[in-house]
């Protein structure tokens, strides 16, 4: 498969728009939540498991197979610990009882 120019253009537009959107969204995240923000974005970027799975679907040889399998294990660790830890941190934030 080779990338057609149009694919590249679309991908660049997607990348730029997603970057601007990300900058705007993160700018508005409360400073209270910067640690869970980092844990969560890290978990989200674990969607790179998709790439590993695609490679795993049709590996050319054992080397490719092993590389992709190790990648899945690494990324799955991040998925489990990323979402789990974010949940644990967010549960800690509580408001004062009977406050406004």
């Amino acid at each position, binding site marked *: 498969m080779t990338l057609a120019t149009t694919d590249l253009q679309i991908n660049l537009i997607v990348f730029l728009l997603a970057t601007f959107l990300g900058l705007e969204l993160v700018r508005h995240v409360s400073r209270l939540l910067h640690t869970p923000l980092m844990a969560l974005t890290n978990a989200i970027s674990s969607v790179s498991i998709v790439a590993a799975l695609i490679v795993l679907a049709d590996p050319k040889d054992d080397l490719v197979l092993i590389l992709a399998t190790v990648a899945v294990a690494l990324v799955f660790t*991040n998925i489990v610990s990323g979402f789990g830890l974010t949940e644990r941190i967010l549960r800690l934030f509580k408001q004062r009882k009977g406050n406004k």
Partner: protein
Amino acid sequence: MNDTIVEYLYVVAILFFVLSLKWLSEVKTSRYGNWIAASGMAVAIGGTLLAYQVQRVDLLIVAIVVGVIIGAPIALKVPMTAVPQRTAASHAFGSLAVALVGTAEYYQRLPNIDVFTLTVLCAEMILGYLTFMGSCIAFAKLQGLIPGKPFVYGGRNSVSLATLAVAVALAIYLIANPTHSYVLPFMAGFAVLFGFLLVMAIGGADMPTVIAILNSYAGMSAAALGFVLNNQVLIVAGALDGSSGFILAVIMSNAMNRSFTNVLFGGVGAVKVAASAGPEVAGGRTAQAFTVDDVATILDHARSVVFVPGYGMAVAQAQHVVKEVADILQADGIDVKYGIHPVAGRMPGHMNVLLAEAQVPYDQLWEMDRINPLFPETDVAIVVGANDVTNPAARTRPDSPLFGMPIMNVDKAKTVVFIKRSMSPGFAGVENELFYLPNTMMVFGDAKKVLADLVAALKKQH
């Protein structure tokens, strides 16, 4: 058929990821943000498995089981004080995975690999491998496996950059000769070495910035992989992660008064180390040491108290006893707030999480910009484990290495209680002028012990 379905499922996943960041902006909706992001992940994985039949299901299951076995204890057991090192570890895992997939993709496509794809792959691999090693070093420093002090020597920047240059040169050679795959391990090796040198040269107190930069790099390498695979969900997720890390790095560097170039080139820590040559203000002055009972007496007459926590509070695990003191004060009708400097701790937002863990309500956690105007009306400011971020020299002495750094203006409070192990200077190697001010009460000792004694003293007063 399945191909079309998976395209739409990816759109759903992208939507969920964007919504999750939107909902994370406020505490009230933040948990929905986490759940919808997890749902987005499930949709993306499910869709991929539907469209691409994995042949070796046994290996896939093994990999997932390994992931759960390592990941679940991290999710459930990591103490909040250790969140910075777990974040560094997750950056290491994530970027290594992306680098390995990139490597696999290269071998997979050999020998028919076009220049564009290989260029992006090489950039992605260099970024991935250097972030992997950089994050490993950050982890080792945060965990205390290696000294947190920056490892500096003459011309280290030239050596680091030369290492990176070799990696890039090898990449260019590989792009020109795609089938010469023996070059790839060397390229990866030099990228790893560069990551090593980059983070070794950085000190512990600069970790919030470094972690944010590594976060950004990890996201960027994931996005690059998306370009290679023509996969938009990867591009979007990588871009969101990359821009998030970028913004956090900017916030951290601004809070330390570092230029942006300084951050990007990882020259973090160099300025401060150079300044550690000699204390700026010694001049035969003596700081006044006080006892816990003196502090209890002062607090008895106070109406408003602000705690200013720093990394020392995390080291001493003193957040719970801080809350105990605060509870006693509040029961007496004293107004209690917590002033949080953006770079207090070892990662962005570190102090907030620790205090939330000690069940401090989040509406008592005040950012620097909001709390600073209130210090002149504050009766007692209690500094627990913070140092450089309270040094008035940052405002007043143009010759100080800290000059220009935004600080917590605790010196403007009527009384400052400074809890500290000894008179040793902070990370910047600069003596804190605060110690010698007439309204400062130094209390020497371990933060946790001092505060526990304070709890006892306060109870005795009643």
